[in-house]
C-alpha cells in the first residue's frame, strides 16, 4: 500500500497543447482569409440580397415546353457520350503507359535493384503522366476549342488527356500496392512481362481497377458539364447560353436535369462497383 494520498489532478495535461494548436491554426488562417478577400457578410448586405433574390426568382416557372425539353434531352445524351468517349480515349492513353511504368513487371528487379535503363524509362513515363494530369481538363478544353472549334470534340480530347494521366498514375499505384506474389512467380518461372500481366497482375487487381474506372466515369460526367461552359458542347454549354440570356427558368431546368444525371450516374456506378466487387 502506498502511503501518499492520491489527489485529483488540477487540470488536463493535454489542455495547453490544444490551446496552442488552435491558436496556431488561427494565426495561419488569417493571412489566407485576407488573401482571398474572405468576407462572408457581404452576402447578406441588402443590395446583394436583392440581386440574389432576383436571380433565384427568375428560376420560376421552370421552362418545360416540348421544344426545350427535346433540346435538353439531346444535350444530356451528348454529355454522357462525351464523358464515355473521353474516358475510352483516356484508357487508350493510360493502359500502355501503366504497363511501361510498372515496377512489378520488371525482370531485372526480380533479383536486387532494377537495371538503370529500365528504371529511368519507368520514372520518365511517370513524370509524363504527372504532367498530363496536372493540367486541368478545363485548360486542355480551352486549347482544343481553339484547335478543333466549338463542340464536344474539344471536350472529349480534354477529358482523354487529363483522365489518361490520372488513370495511368492511379492504375500504377493500384497494381504496385496489391499482391505481387503471383506475378513475381510467373516472371521467375520464365514468362514474359505481358503474359505475367495478363495471368498474374490483372486478375489479382481486376476488381479494384474496374471499380476505379467506373468511379472516374462518374467524375467525367460531372466534369463534362463544366467543360460545356468553355464551349465544349453538352449541358454545360446550354446552361452557359441560358445564363447569358438571363433565362432563369431554363437555367433551373438544366440544373435539375444535371442533378438528376449526376445522381443517376452515381447510382449506376455504385451498382456496377457492387456487381464487380
Amino acid at each position, binding site marked *: 500500500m502506498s502511503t501518499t494520498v492520491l489527489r485529483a489532478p488540477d487540470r488536463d495535461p493535454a489542455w495547453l497543447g490544444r490551446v496552442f494548436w488552435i491558436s496556431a491554426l488561427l494565426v495561419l488562417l488569417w493571412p489566407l482569409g485576407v488573401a482571398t478577400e474572405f468576407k462572408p457578410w457581404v452576402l447578406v448586405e441588402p443590395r446583394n440580397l436583392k440581386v440574389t433574390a432576383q436571380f433565384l426568382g427568375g428560376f420560376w416557372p421552370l421552362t418545360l415546353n416540348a421544344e426545350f425539353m427535346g433540346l435538353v434531352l439531346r444535350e444530356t445524351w451528348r454529355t454522357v457520350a462525351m464523358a464515355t468517349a473521353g474516358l475510352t480515349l483516356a484508357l487508350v492513353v493510360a493502359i500502355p503507359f501503366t504497363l511501361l511504368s510498372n515496377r512489378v513487371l520488371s525482370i531485372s528487379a526480380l533479383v536486387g535493384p532494377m537495371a538503370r535503363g529500365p528504371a529511368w524509362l519507368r520514372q520518365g513515363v511517370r513524370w509524363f503522366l504527372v504532367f498530363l494530369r496536372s493540367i486541368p481538363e478545363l485548360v486542355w478544353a480551352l486549347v482544343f476549342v481553339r484547335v478543333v472549334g466549338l463542340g464536344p470534340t474539344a471536350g472529349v480530347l480534354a477529358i482523354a488527356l487529363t483522365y489518361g494521366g490520372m488513370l495511368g498514375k492511379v492504375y500504377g499505384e493500384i497494381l504496385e500496392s496489391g499482391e505481387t506474389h*503471383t506475378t*513475381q512467380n510467373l516472371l*521467375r*518461372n520464365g514468362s514474359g512481362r505481358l503474359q505475367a500481366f495478363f*495471368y498474374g497482375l490483372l*486478375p489479382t*487487381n481486376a476488381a479494384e481497377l474496374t471499380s476505379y474506372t467506373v468511379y472516374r466515369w462518374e467524375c467525367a460526367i460531372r466534369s463534362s458539364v463544366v467543360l460545356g461552359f468553355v464551349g465544349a458542347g453538352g449541358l454545360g454549354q446550354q446552361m452557359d447560353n441560358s445564363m447569358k440570356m438571363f433565362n432563369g427558368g431554363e437555367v433551373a431546368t438544366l440544373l435539375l436535369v444535371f442533378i438528376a444525371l449526376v445522381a443517376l450516374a452515381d447510382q449506376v456506378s455504385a451498382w456496377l462497383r457492387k456487381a464487380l466487387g
Partner: protein
Amino acid sequence: MKIDLQALSARHPAARVGAVPAIRLIDLQIASGEQVAVIGPSGAGKTTLLQVLACALTPTAGSLQLDEVAPWRLSRRALQRLRGQLFLAPQVPPLPPRQRVVTAVLAARLPAMGLLASLRSLFYPNDIPGAFDALDRFDLAEKLFERVDRLSGGERQRVGLARALLAPAKLWLIDEPLSALDPTRSRQAIDTLLGSARERGVTLVATLHQVDVALAHFPRVIGLRDGEVAFDLPAEQVTRERLAALYDQFEHELRGEVTPIPENNVTTPQPVVMHCR
C-alpha cells in the same frame, strides 16, 4: 537438367549488407533426372537454396552452373529464357484469387507460349484436356472450372503442384509441397510428383519438413543446417544419429509436432483514395 554448385554463398535480398549469408560455401552436384530431398530445421537455408537454383537470387560468391551454363553470365533475355526451363513452386501457391483453376494451371505453360496464344487462352483455355489430366493426378479434376478463392488451402497447394506437370521445365524446384496436406494427400501428392518427374526425365529438388516422407520416397537426401550441407547421402544411409544431430535443439520439428503453416500473405490491398481532382 544437371546442376553444379561450387562454393556457393547467397543471402536473402532483404538481409543487411555484411549479414551472415543464408547459405554458405555449398558444393553440390545433381545429375540430370535425379530426385533430391532437402531437409533441415527452420532457417537452415532450404528456401534460399531453391531460389538460387531457380535463378531467383544472385549468389554472392561461388559459381552456379545449370547444364554447363552459368546463368548469371547470360544476357537478361537469355536468362529469362533459361528461367522458362526451371519451375519454382513456392510454399504459398501463387494463384490469383479470382482466377479460375484452369487458367491458373495453364499459366505454367506461359514460357512456351507466344503472347497471342496466351491471350487467346484467356478467352478460351487452349488445353482443357491437359489441365484436366494434371489436376486429375492430384484428385482435383472436378475443380477445373472453379474459382481459386473457392478452394481450401490444401486444394490450392495441390493446384500449385499440378502446375508443375504442365510447365515446360527440365528442373522442378518445389518448396514444402506438403505443408497444407494431410498424410493421405501427402503420400498421393509426393507419389505423383516423383512419378511424373521420372516419366519426363525431369530433375526434382524438393524441400521437406516431413523427414519420414523424404527418407521413404527420395533416393537422395541432403541435410542442411545453418546454411551449410550437414550431410548428402542416399536415403538408406541417413541414420537416426545423423538426423538427431541435424535437428539438434529443433527436435520438435523432427518429431513433426510443428507443421509449418504457410503464412497466407494474401494481404488485403490498400483501398485507393477515390479523389476526383
